[in-house]
């Protein structure tokens, strides 16, 4: 009945999320048990666990934007970033841990784009959690075969004289694209430049905002 159907929708037209009334799954029980044992044995505290979750949730593309804007305004930093992106991002307080980071520089003739065809490897220390499309088969399988078509779907039309380099994160490296600095931004402060750097421009499916 129409009325029943409507009652499942919020005033903005979205369905309400159902209450979680089912018993815990095997793996939910496992997670709670392991966490409680770790706390009981004093290996980690409850506070540390929640602070770590908070830290992980707070990572966002604003971190990557700081790295990019710094590279745009400091040639020595840019050199260090292209030589060893793990160390260069650590300099700004963004530690990638055991993994290695490679920065890929876009030029007037080269456009870089990143993917993980095997799973969803992503530079989380600089960009936060990956967007859903990055993890989906549709992006992962098509960007390696039809990069120009897929980039057009993102609204990015590249001319034929720009070579596309697709980078598949198959193992221990993570990648971030260093996009071209937008024209006419020579006088902008680092903070203003950071605001132009989009998440998509650091994945390579977009460009920074122009002014």
């Amino acid at each position, binding site marked *: 009945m129409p009325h029943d159907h409507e009652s499942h929708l919020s005033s903005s037209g979205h369905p309400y999320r159902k209450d979680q009334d089912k018993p815990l799954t095997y793996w939910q029980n496992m997670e709670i048990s392991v966490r409680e044992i770790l706390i009981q044995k004093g290996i980690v505290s409850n506070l540390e666990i929640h602070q770590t979750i908070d830290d992980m949730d707070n990572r966002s593309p604003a971190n990557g934007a700081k790295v990019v804007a710094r590279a745009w305004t400091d040639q020595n930093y840019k050199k260090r970033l292209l030589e060893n992106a793990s160390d260069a991002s650590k300099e700004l307080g963004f530690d990638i841990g055991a993994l290695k980071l490679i920065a890929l520089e876009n030029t007037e003739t080269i456009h870089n784009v990143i993917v993980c*065809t095997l799973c969803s490897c992503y530079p989380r220390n600089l960009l936060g959690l990956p967007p859903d499309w990055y993890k989906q088969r549709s992006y992962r399988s098509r960007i390696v*075969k039809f990069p*120009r078509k897929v980039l057009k779907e993102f609204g990015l039309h590249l001319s034929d004289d720009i070579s*596309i380099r697709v980078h*598949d994160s*198959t*193992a221990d490296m993570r990648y971030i694209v260093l996009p071209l600095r937008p024209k006419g931004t020579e006088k902008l402060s680092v903070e203003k430049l950071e605001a132009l750097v989009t998440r998509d421009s650091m994945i390579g499916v977009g460009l920074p905002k122009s002014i």
Partner: protein
Amino acid sequence: MTVKIKSLFPPGHVRTPSYLRGKVGEIERELGYFHNPEQLAYDLPAQKIKLYRVRFTMSEIWGEEVECASDTIDAEIYEHWIEKD
């Protein structure tokens, strides 16, 4: 240096994508030594293996279906998957 990726299809956790197996590319850079994920995934003692970034042309991978022949794909490939000329 020109290399060919081995055309093997072993079971298990393998980090060499199928679409690159049997394909010829150029070593773009060496990345150092990393634990073999094919052992690591099963909690077995994992030896450290040299990891490379290999660059392939789109035409090498996709043949006539290619969108733009000069576009490239770079991927990380462990040494035991690489045949050197």
